[in-house]
């Protein structure tokens, strides 16, 4: 059965992507994409429910599988993809009106959007680390032309850097996979399953710790690059800054988590195989470094999409830091934060996409008085800013507070103090620029309107979810996360 489920899940976006390549009608492209993302999301929901019920979802040969951890990430990814596809419709329509996008580009967009989703799903359901790698590399390839979408000088530059850095990174990750495979070859009975995570984790404590350490280092650099951990984050501001707003949103809310997920699989494996402290220490160091390095770029910034990119670096740092703390509470916080961050990032990228369209600029100095020009988006934006910077009553506060609590409880006092300091400082940058953009009077007359009602309602719903997560975590969610935590604990 699971073979069927998985092939449906993978096939839907892949086929829609291929279909989009041959279609011309705008409405058809939109409808197909909307249909595929919505169905994928529903599929992810159903599969998650199945996982939660304890159904084993693994294909007979063990190539693909789904557990609570991957189901959780998948839910976030497919949900984000659905929101993004709804938003994309209005966004691109307006860009067509503004003559920024023509029919050919539109086709490319929807095709790649679907393929992008397909590649991310491939990573998530891969049990075989080789497929996981293939999926990861494919995400880069699928998004390369999306980053270069507008074919401006800057977007080509960004895409070049993006592809080169991520390819190097993912190459290093492949070496990590090879080393893991190497260490497992003599332990796992069948060579064909030696790359399967399920069989690896079963024999983890027999694996050679030295090789695994080396493997983890390469995986950390490799998947860390994809996730945007400092100092491998450098492609992020460029790529996020140049890609169309919905794509940036999907990268920040989906792709990042997919990369983190891959990294996490290695983390779990290494934690089981290697004496305590190795991988967690590295996670804490890299997490903190990513958080700290984002600070100056957020305090002094001129471009709001780059601002968000650095915020993404910061939050990846937070998540990695939290995993590095190594206690169940910290894992809980980290997984919760993955969700919260994805929600908040979607809100910010999408509302700022509307700002971008209205003002035709992503330079923050040129944007002011958004509340008067695009009141709904601006309201959602300012709320989103408070949400992402960890203000109650929004979910990010809960997850960040859980993380510092875990940090203090785990005795990591100093890193936790740095954490608190960084989060507080980053808020300064955010609120400064957000106030500048949202409030006041517009510098000039702006005739462009706000985004379409559907996407605004959807963003509003995201804000509402963030708010609800800030005051209460529903029990199904905490069950879900707890099951995922159990997997992370190994």
């Amino acid at each position, binding site marked *: 059965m699971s073979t069927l489920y998985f092939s449906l899940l993978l096939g839907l976006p892949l086929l829609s992507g291929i279909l989009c390549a041959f279609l011309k009608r705008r409405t058809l492209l939109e409808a197909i994409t909307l249909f595929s993302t919505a169905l994928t999301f529903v599929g992810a929901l159903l599969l998650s429910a199945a996982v939660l019920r304890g159904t084993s979802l693994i294909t007979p040969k063990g190539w693909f599988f789904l557990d609570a951890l991957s189901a959780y990430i998948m839910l976030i990814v497919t949900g984000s993809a659905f929101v993004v596809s709804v938003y994309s419709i209005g966004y691109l329509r307006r860009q067509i009106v503004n003559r920024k996008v023509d029919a050919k580009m539109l086709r490319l967009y929807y095709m790649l959007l679907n393929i992008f989703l397909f590649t991310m799903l491939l990573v998530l359901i891969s049990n075989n680390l080789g497929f996981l790698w293939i999926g990861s590399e494919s995400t880069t390839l699928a998004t390369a032309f999306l980053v270069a979408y507008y074919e401006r000088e800057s977007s080509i530059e960004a895409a070049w850097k993006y592809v080169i850095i991520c390819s*190097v990174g993912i190459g290093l990750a492949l070496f990590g996979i090879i080393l893991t495979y190497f260490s497992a070859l003599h332990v796992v009975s069948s060579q064909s399953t030696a790359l399967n995570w399920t069989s690896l984790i079963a024999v983890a404590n027999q694996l050679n710790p030295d090789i695994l350490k080396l493997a*983890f*280092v390469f995986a950390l650099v490799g998947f860390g690059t994809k996730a945007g951990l400092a100092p491998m984050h450098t492609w992020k501001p460029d790529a996020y800054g140049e890609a169309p707003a919905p794509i940036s949103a999907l990268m920040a809310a989906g792709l990042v988590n997919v990369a983190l997920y891959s990294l996490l699989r290695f983390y779990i494996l290494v934690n089981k195989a290697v004496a305590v402290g190795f991988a967690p220490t590295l996670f804490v160091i890299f997490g903190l470094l990513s958080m700290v390095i984002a600070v100056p770029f957020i305090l*002094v910034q001129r471009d709001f999409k780059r601002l968000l990119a650095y915020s993404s670096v910061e939050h990846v740092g937070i998540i990695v830091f939290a995993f590095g703390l190594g206690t169940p509470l910290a894992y809980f916080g980290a997984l919760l934060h993955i969700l919260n961050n994805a929600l908040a990032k979607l809100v910010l990228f999408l509302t700022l996409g509307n700002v971008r369209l209205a003002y035709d600029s992503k330079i923050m100095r040129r944007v002011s008085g958004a509340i008067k020009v695009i009141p709904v988006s601006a309201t959602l934006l300012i709320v989103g800013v408070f949400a992402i910077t960890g203000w*109650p009553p929004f979910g990010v*506060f809960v997850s960040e507070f859980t993380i510092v*609590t875990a940090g203090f409880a785990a005795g990591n006092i100093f890193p936790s103090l740095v954490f608190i300091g960084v989060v*507080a400082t980053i808020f300064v940058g955010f*609120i400064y620029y957000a106030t500048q953009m949202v409030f006041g009077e517009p510098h000039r007359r702006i005739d462009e309107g706000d985004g379409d009602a559907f996407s605004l309602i959807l963003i509003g719903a995201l804000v509402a979810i963030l708010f609800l997560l800030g005051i209460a975590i529903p029990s199904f969610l905490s069950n879900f996360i707890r099951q995922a935590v159990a997997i992370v604990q190994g």
Partner: protein
Amino acid sequence: MLDLPSLQFMAFHLLVGGYVLAILIAPLRDRKPFSRTNTSEGNTSQQSFLFVRYFGFGAALLASLSGLFLSMSVLTTGSALHLDLQQTLPFGSLSINVDPLAAFFLGVISLLGAVVSVYSFGYSGEYAGRKNLSLLVVLYNLFLLSMSIVVIAGNAVLFLIVWELMSLTTFFLINYEHEQRASRKAAILYIVMTHIGTAFLIVMFLLLAGTAHSFDFQSFRNSSAQLPSSIKTLIFFCALIGFGIKSGVVPFHIWLPEAHPAAPSNVSALMSGVMIKTGIYGMVRVYFDFLAPGPAWWGIVVLAVAVASAVLGVLYALMEHDLKRLLAFHSIENIGIILMGVGAAMIFMSYGNMPLATVALIAGLYHVLNHAMFKGLLFLGAGSVVSATHTRNIEELGGLVKKLPWTSAFFLIGALAISALPPLNGFVSEWLTFQALLLGFNISDLSVRVAIPIAVALLALTGALAAACFVKAFGITFLGLPRSSHAEHAHEPPRSMLVPMGVLAFACILLGVFPGSMISILTPVTTFLLGGSASALEVLNLGSLTIPQSGAGGVSPLTLVIFLVALTVLPLVLGLLLGGKLQKRAAMVWACGLEKVEPRMQYTATGFSKPIRMIFSNIFHATHEIEISEAASPFFKQQLRYELETESVFEKYFYEPMRSGVVAAAKFIRRIQTGHLQSYLLYMFIALILLLMFAR
């Protein structure tokens, strides 16, 4: 059926429900909540404005009255209300705990909240058709709600959530008139400062929770004895900074004079009157409830901060001629006075002298209430002045006593009260503070013995300067001749704005004349925090307050009032006896030989404060610039421009260098994003190599 717990329970739900109802309903009636401009389109929109106003502020009034009831029921019966909320977050169950300390602060908040809500009916009319009124209603109610829950939260996580919610709502309230650059800047400064403060609070709670293994206040209380003293000290400083920023003590005060004037006046009244007190609440909660007793030097540190706040607050206030900024600076001063009581109480507590600590704490807490009353009154008065004249610059005012007789009378009462003049409430609490400080001579420790007289001296200085400042504020604003056409054509505000001011003025008098009854309400608080030594302050017949420890130094405001009135009548009688009926004749005053007295001939606010500026020139570093343009001959000046600038030491020597330092550092570090692909690859390369070395 209606026993006390269930009444309290109902009051709590009414408190929360009232605010929430307003928050939920008010925006619904605003037909276009997101429309670009809320232009009033005929009747329907006018009606919806009225509905929003009446319903929104009416609900707030109801909620705050039930808050007041809840507070009073706890304080008078002594039975605390404890509620466990359902556990929804991963930090244990959130709880509400209305103990006497919480009840007192809830009472203060609710009392001022109720009065200001009535004022807001009238005041918000100012914004009708111009701004989004339902937004104001929502924020206003959210502000009151979060503030109320801050003081009754029984759990650190709930506390932090509502604490930040409070900051958030005030951010939007300060930014309510966001078209003005000053408002935006003030809002940013405020939220940045308060957020940094919260970071310290989070650290503090986490340190407390480290030993308590729970975020419940009760567990903090129980486990504080196990805390090592170094951690305790850390907690002390975290609380001092975290709560200090919110209450605006020097040197964390810089946000306050920017933020309070920017907010709508009804909100300023609440911010200045009660919001900054939540910081005081926090300090009292941590120092007296969680960590008590701490070492004496904590008290001295608090005292030092208090003294600095009081003196610098009033000195900066004297240099202001923006009415609301002036009041804001006075809030800094009064927070200082409150903290003097708190600091002295901490000192006494560390020596185990609970009776003295009780006196000092009562002094501080009493001033909390008093300041809420008179500062609320003054801000409401300022709001009326601003809405009547559309200017906050007192150099453009004058002569309002004839245009706004009621407002000016109420403002005068507020001014007298804040200047601590008998028989008003400010006097009583300042009197208690003096007494508390003087009791310090019972402590034999040398550092205390040096600290106390200095605190006394500077408190005395503060009181005198405050009087000077309010002579200026009242005199220049309300007396003399109008200095601009704004002031000339001002009108008395509607009754809904006057009545609240009247109520507060009456409260100022009442609290000044009958301190005894108030102190009996405060007694449960001090008993709760310091144990059962309620006899530290004796309340004798006719409301006389006596402190046994100070050799029965006492004061009886009620009798004093009676005598004052009687003796004020005496000259009337004497006059009648000596000279018969008073003959009066009005005449123009001498105008130095000119035809008539011109408004421009009056003393200005700047001129008024010049002697003080000279006396304290070391603090102000004033620089002025005079520009004279002459017409035909040097004897006939055409125009004279005088510009004066006083230096704000903290901004100039601390905050500004820090800001520019951080920005410079950020700009420096930003260079790592070179744009060079190779350097990016190099980072990866170096990271990989370092990791390989680490992994070996």
